[in-house]
């Protein structure tokens, strides 16, 4: 049984070598389909994982103000009520917003340096300079993309014309590390007071409130979180967001974007399957004589189908492997040009950005599945049609 399979496998390998054009066409078309799928999937999983990591230090709950169904500033007077809620450890204020320089959208974030639950220096690692000093005003830490865009470096002064046409000047104290660049590359971090002046936000209002709950047993965490969220929801004109909601929003965004690629990939895969089918039919016609001869020599229909199955399996695995390796190379070494802009959705990205990539066993297995399964269907059916014909008739029609 073993030697029979070995003989069939040897014959299948010979067929792969003999029908070079068919082999090449199938491998190239399937490799392209596998490459697109693998590249986008690895990048999507990497982005989702980065999202999970970034939420590691995030507050348990984020409370936003709402007005007429839209997000608005929230009153700091709510802090008193929230802090009194059972299960709440601390409440932090945060002011943030956006600013456009050219085509680049920047995020300007102001944090309360004196009453921070999490040490900001541990959340925002720096590549150069030092972190913000709570005793100093008019200083900022900038992301790598902001530094590259403006040409600012540690020690230089950043003069920004704000939305209200006021000029604000800040000393650049540090530049964020590229390790966490995906979330702070486009960020200008400053003290809450500086951010308040920058955006012209009145006293008593902030962009959102960060709520940290008491440390409890993991089993009770969700119960406590839901209880606190429900209590805070009782406040007028507020919206409560949990870490899970923020993560799901990220996943949905990346999922939707990768969905566009999935459509393109699906088109390529269908084309590849059609090409494979076509090639098998053409070669199958050419090899009718061969099939007839094999059957005359005692090969059964199942033997011939097995040969084609082995052939398809080898070609599918080879194409899948090429696609996966190309996808990894494209994402990690080349930085996924075109795909990365689409997936991240930034108006402009700076050149040295490294795309987060995660290679999971699940994606690798799915990539192999999408290259092998359609090929099996596309090759086995024509070979079965050839193999069921009478050997004498097959040889005669092939000669005709």
């Amino acid at each position, binding site marked *: 049984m073993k030697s029979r399979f070995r003989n069939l496998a040897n014959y299948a390998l010979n067929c792969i070598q003999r029908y070079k054009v068919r082999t090449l066409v199938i491998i190239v078309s399937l490799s392209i389909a596998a490459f697109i799928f693998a590249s986008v999937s690895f990048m999507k999983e990497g982005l989702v994982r980065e999202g999970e990591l970034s939420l590691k230090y995030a507050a348990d709950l984020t409370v936003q103000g709402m007005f007429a169904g839209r997000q608005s500033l929230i009153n700091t007077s709510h802090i008193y009520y929230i802090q009194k809620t059972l299960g709440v450890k601390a409440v932090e204020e945060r002011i943030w917003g956006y*600013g456009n*320089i050219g085509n680049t959208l920047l995020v300007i974030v102001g944090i309360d340096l004196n009453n921070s639950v999490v040490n900001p220096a541990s959340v925002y690692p720096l590549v150069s300079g030092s972190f913000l000093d709570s005793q100093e005003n008019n200083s900022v830490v900038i992301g790598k993309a902001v530094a590259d865009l403006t040409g600012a470096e540690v020690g230089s*002064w950043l003069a920004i014309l704000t939305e209200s046409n006021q000029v604000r000047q800040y000393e650049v104290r540090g530049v964020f590390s590229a390790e966490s660049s995906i979330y702070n590359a486009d960020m200008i971090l400053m003290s809450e007071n500086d951010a308040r002046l920058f955006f012209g936000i009145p006293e008593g209002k902030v962009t959102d409130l960060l709520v940290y709950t008491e440390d409890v047993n993991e089993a009770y965490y969700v119960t406590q979180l839901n209880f606190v969220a429900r209590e805070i929801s009782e406040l007028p004109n507020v919206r409560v967001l949990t870490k899970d909601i923020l993560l799901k929003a990220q996943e949905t965004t990346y999922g939707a974007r990768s969905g566009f690629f999935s459509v393109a990939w699906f088109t390529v895969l269908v084309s590849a399957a059609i090409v494979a089918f076509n090639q098998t039919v053409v070669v199958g016609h050419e090899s009718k004589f061969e099939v007839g001869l094999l059957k005359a020599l005692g090969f059964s229909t199942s033997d011939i189908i097995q040969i084609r199955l082995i052939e398809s399996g080898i070609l599918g695995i080879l194409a899948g492997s090429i696609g996966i390796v190309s996808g990894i190379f494209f994402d990690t070494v080349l930085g996924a040009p075109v795909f990365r802009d689409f997936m991240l959705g930034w108006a402009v990205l700076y050149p040295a950005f490294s795309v987060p990539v995660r290679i999971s066993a699940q994606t690798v297995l799915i990539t192999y599945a999408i290259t092998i399964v359609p090929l099996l269907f596309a090759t086995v059916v024509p070979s079965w049609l050839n193999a069921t014909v009478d050997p004498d008739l097959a040889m005669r029609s092939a000669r005709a």
Partner: protein
Amino acid sequence: MKLKKLIAAEITTVALVFILLVILVDFTSYLGSSNQNDRIGLYAEKEYAAGNITVVSGEIAFVRFNYSSYEPAILVLELTFQSWESTGYLDIRCNNRAIRPIFASPENPIIRLNVVSTSGAEWVEPLSSMFGLNEVTFESGLENGFIGLLSYKIKLRGSR
């Protein structure tokens, strides 16, 4: 046969008209491209002016440069203070818009200012305004004003 000839004649006519148009555009000087491209480009920097200025109390020193592009630019000012007759504040303006005063002292002889806008109003005027002529002024206040010699470099960075 007639149809073949007709198609061939049509293709030849279109090709001839196209070639004639290309020749006409190429040889007519006022139809040709100016070949001027002052676009700086994203992450790139270009020096527009450099020199020395002596700042005297109560007087305004100015530097002018031309910016002949429509791309919003980021202004980078590199100031190196050479001598201090009096340490103090120096008001810097770009196109009459104040970039806030800086304090010039021997402790900080080199100051780099990166001037950006998030408001939509631009610091550096493009070609459509004042024919691209821009002016950076240095003014020492009558009280606590810097007096001395400084060298400057005015650079622009692309934002698109």
